[in-house]
């Protein structure tokens, strides 16, 4: 063909051009790669805080606008209020300073038990065993207030889950539940919060589900709520039957989630939409 001899120089020119362009494209790519390598240690995990709007972030940051602080204040009052047949207050045994770091470490193995116990369980145990008072109802205001007060002492600390080897089987159980499809929608936790986190679900950003701020003040609830309530919320969302309130599955999930969020900064009481 006539065109072929005239085409070959243009082809070589094209190749040369591509070569140059490739180099041009490659250079920033190399820079980006080295930058990414330098940043490899940087944490890519996102707290739900980072996915909310500026107004809500401000609400959480301002201690006189964050409604969770009302519960912290109430918890502080309850902390020194004697209760039960033993007529003991929390501060008769515990110092507030000792509560620093508790929320970022729990759940831990129960002292004389073979199961992990979360902060809620620990407070309820103290309430019935040591104070000999009537047990707190699940998600009751006073229970949440005490949890919020204790959790607030750990604000700003990195999550440092207990390294007790006895927790391992429970962490694994939690991971199994996390990855198991459930409910009529047949979804696992991981399918939303690992595989599709950051994308939208009905206009709402799917969070990565790190328990960095519990108990949280959720505007939808118009109340403070625990991680357990949030887990139940998701279970209902996938049309699964939520585990009963006392079920060990919640604690196992919490052990797994706290490990997953290891090193992230604790920010309770959080505000969430």
């Amino acid at each position: 063909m006539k065109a072929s001899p005239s085409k070959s120089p243009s082809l070589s020119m094209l190749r040369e051009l591509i070569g140059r362009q490739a180099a041009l494209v490659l250079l920033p790519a190399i820079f980006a790669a080295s930058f990414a390598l330098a940043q490899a240690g940087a944490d890519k995990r996102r707290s739900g805080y980072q996915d909310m709007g500026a107004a809500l972030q401000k609400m959480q940051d301002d201690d006189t606008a964050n409604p969770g602080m009302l519960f912290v204040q109430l918890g502080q009052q309850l902390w020194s209020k004697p209760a039960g047949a033993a007529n003991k207050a929390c501060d008769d045994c515990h110092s507030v300073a000792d509560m620093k770091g508790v929320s970022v470490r729990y759940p831990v193995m129960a002292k004389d038990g073979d199961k992990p116990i979360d902060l809620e369980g620990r407070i309820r145990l103290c309430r019935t065993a040591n104070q000999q008072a009537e047990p707190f109802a699940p998600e009751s205001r006073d229970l949440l207030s005490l949890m919020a007060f204790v959790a607030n002492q750990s604000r700003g600390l990195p999550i440092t889950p207990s390294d007790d080897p006895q927790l391992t089987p429970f962490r694994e159980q939690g991971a199994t539940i996390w990855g198991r499809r459930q409910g009529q929608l047949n979804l696992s936790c991981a399918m939303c919060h690992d595989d599709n986190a950051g994308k939208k679900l009905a206009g709402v950003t799917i969070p990565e589900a790190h328990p960095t701020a519990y108990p949280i003040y959720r505007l939808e609830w118009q109340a403070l709520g625990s991680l357990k309530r949030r887990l139940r919320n998701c279970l209902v969302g996938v049309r699964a039957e939520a585990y009963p309130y006392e079920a060990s599955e919640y604690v196992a999930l919490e052990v797994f989630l706290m490990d997953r969020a290891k090193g992230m900064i604790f920010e309770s009481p959080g505000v969430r939409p």
Partner: protein
Amino acid sequence: MTNVLINAPKTAKKGEMIELKTLIMHPMETGFRPGTNGRLIPRNIIERFTASWNGAEILRMDFSPAIAANPFVSFFAVATESGKITFRWTGDEGFAVEESVAIDVA
């Protein structure tokens, strides 16, 4: 147990515009929601919020059932004189809470 958080400056210049922020724990039950027994939960809201500066009313606000639980109110006032700013919430079921903060105006 009253549970209120107030954010007000402790000092201000005369004539300065200051922001006053208040937050109070209250369920703000609308009266339109059925309870677990199917019957309506009786209305329990804050009906009125007032703020006064040394006894002179500077803000009066009527609340409605559509206002969310634990209401947050923020407003501005001109600092006129040193003294006491008093906030008062009154509502259903005999709800009455009063809190004061001192302010120094120079």
